[in-house]
């Protein structure tokens, strides 16, 4: 089991290639949805890192918004539109915030962790909605994105952004996958099931949670930065308000925690369901989203990825144990 060949890296790379090829086939609006899925998927990936150790944040729009606003403010006040620089800054500022708040949050588990995150995201929402310098509720519109010396316009810019985002997201997913394979990354079950034992092995659960929290904050910032570039606009209502955090948890539930690929598939499914519901049933699209979420919770509690796992578990020795473990978790 433990020594199964690691196919995820190949899968990720194939996925990247497929995405880049897909770009030539699908219509523009679909490219837009794909880019947004990459952004939201990254945030959900951050939630996955936390969720594996039994924690859920109902306030990750905090980091999403932080990354997005960093990009927005750089564009507005510094005139910096370079994608490399703005995304890097968005990621770093979100990471620094997560590092700071992490000292407090790492002491909490369960619903308190979830709600305290929500409280912080609502404080950020309040600040953004209040201050005209930060665009208030109207938000901030971004100048067209540039890539070092390359400054495409119009539809070309969207394609460039998609390619850029896809490659970066690939890199991010690979890094997270490598992290999850590391000793620190493996401290998920350990934190969820038995922090006392972890302490007596020589590492503290709080430190492990802090590390994971920073990683999830970085991913949130990354997602927010990419989303800001994709939308071309940042505003508090659609980036920081609490239902936005709810959407990320929705995607995480939809995806399942099985693999780093899952959140991206989940995010795409989410976008498609939402677009479809909004198109076909404009009056009751919330009802459809809620119904979908309920159905997932009731019938597919381990998310879409469990479909993959289930198929895989039919073959290969030793997989039954892992499946059993999963039932235990439930």
């Amino acid at each position, binding site marked *: 089991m433990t020594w199964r060949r690691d196919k995820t890296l190949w899968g990720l790379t194939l*996925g990247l290639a497929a995405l880049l090829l897909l770009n030539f086939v699908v219509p*523009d609006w679909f490219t837009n949805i794909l880019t947004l899925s990459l952004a939201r998927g990254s945030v959900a990936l951050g939630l996955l890192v936390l969720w594996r150790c039994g924690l859920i944040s109902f306030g990750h729009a905090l980091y999403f918004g932080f990354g997005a606003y960093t990009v927005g403010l750089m564009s507005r006040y510094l005139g910096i539109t370079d994608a490399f620089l703005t995304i890097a800054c968005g990621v770093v500022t979100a990471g620094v915030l997560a590092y700071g708040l992490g000292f407090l949050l790492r002491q909490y588990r369960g619903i308190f962790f979830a709600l305290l995150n929500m409280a912080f995201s609502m404080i950020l929402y309040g600040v953004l909605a209040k201050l005209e310098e930060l665009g208030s509720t109207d938000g901030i519109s971004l100048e067209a994105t540039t890539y070092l010396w390359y400054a495409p316009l119009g539809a070309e810019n969207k394609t460039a952004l998609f390619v850029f985002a896809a490659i970066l997201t690939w890199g991010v997913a690979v890094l997270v996958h490598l992290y999850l394979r590391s000793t620190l990354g493996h401290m998920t079950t350990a934190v969820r099931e038995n922090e006392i034992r972890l302490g007596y092995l020589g590492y503290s659960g709080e430190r492990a949670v802090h590390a994971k929290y920073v990683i999830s904050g970085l991913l949130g910032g990354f997602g927010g930065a990419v989303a800001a570039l994709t939308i071309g606009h940042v505003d508090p209502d659609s980036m920081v308000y609490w239902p936005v955090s709810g959407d990320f948890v929705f995607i995480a539930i939809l995806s399942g925690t099985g693999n780093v690929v899952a959140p991206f598939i989940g995010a795409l499914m989410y976008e498609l369901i939402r677009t479809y519901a909004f198109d076909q049933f404009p009056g009751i699209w919330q009802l459809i989203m809620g119904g979908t979420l309920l159905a997932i919770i009731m019938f597919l509690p381990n998310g879409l990825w469990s479909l993959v796992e289930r198929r895989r578990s039919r073959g290969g020795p030793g997989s039954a144990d892992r499946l059993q473990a999963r039932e235990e978790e439930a």
Partner: protein
Amino acid sequence: MNAIPRTRFMALAAALAVSLAAGAASAQTVKVAVPTFLTGGGAPTYGVPAKNGVELVVRAINEGTLPAPYDSVGMAGRKVDLVVYDESGGGTKQVTELRNKVQKEGVDVVAGYISSGSCAAIARVAEELQVLTLLSICGTPRIFEELVKEPKYLFRIINHSTGGNVGAAHYVVRKLRGNVKDGYIGINQNYAWGQDAWRDFNLAMQTLSPEFKPARKQQFPKLFSGQYGTEISVLLRAKEKLVHSSFWGGDLEAFIAQGTARGLFERKTFVWPVGEITAHRLGKKFPNGQLARGPYGLYAEGIDTPLNKWFRSEFRKAYKQSPSSPAYHYADSILAAKYAYDTAMKANGGKFPSTDQVIKALEHATFDILAAKVKMSLGKGHQAVTSDRWGYAEWDDAKGEIVVRDVVEFKAECVNPPEGVNAAEWVKGGMKGAKCD
């Protein structure tokens, strides 16, 4: 990662995508997308009346039953295919939806948007998507001043919000000097519209009559908070007699209910830049006060153009109530589109015009809307100005409805900055170049 589920998943996604793409436009109509609030707090007072206004006018356009000059069938001879969709959910969603509507469903014109946040979010995207977009209500002057300085596809068919609040200040200084001698205080919702409204009003007051002082601290309660007991205490305690409030919708209705129970409106005079819509709904329960803005809604009563008479009577017939200003604004945007298409066709020798020709026809144009004339004179010919009307609202027992008395009409050039001047700086700088009378 396993290959099999992935292919299966991609197939599923592709199937979804195909089913989404179905229903793309047929060629022989003008497809008009109308974003408006169908859910959430903006729906009842703004979104739904707006939708009603649009649907009424579009039906009439397709039947050719509008009065002149809009009495031809369709836009440039083609029937209008209307797609109304929800504006709630914030800027991100609106950007995505706009893309979907344009790229997936192939709409030709977008006419709508209530919230400034939506407008700010989609402004550049509309230009990028090259779709003719007529903004209907969202008030922020930043659209053409900051966001899109070289507009091509983006137009706005009403005054931006500065005009309304400057008009309010003019009216206060001219008609309500007695109520403002102890100064004035503001209570506005804590978001962009509320903040802008207070700033414009306050600056205009300072320019027009610096002897009237604003209160030391203004109230900015959270949007949709619904509980105003404490704020009402503060207002009751304040020495200032005049209160500026750009509240709207459910917040305004709750504020009025709670304020009435505590005698607030007997002690203070209120300036409501967007109170007109609520006055419609509350009727007798609406406290007396100043209302804004423009020749719409209540203020359009008694404006005897054939278009306005038709609109008021048909609207009453269809929806059992008078049209409020959002109904006017949305209907006006459709009229603007029709004007542009029809004019462009004429210029094109009777052939259906290209989008560029339609845009050319609309830039710098002057044309009739329901109850007034608009001039597309600002924002390089993309931002309309109209005159602004202010008055004192009162319940009239005899008529059984709210009437407006002491109406003063301010010319468009009086309450709007000249072309090329930033609105906020114009007000701050003493409203130079304003032509009042």
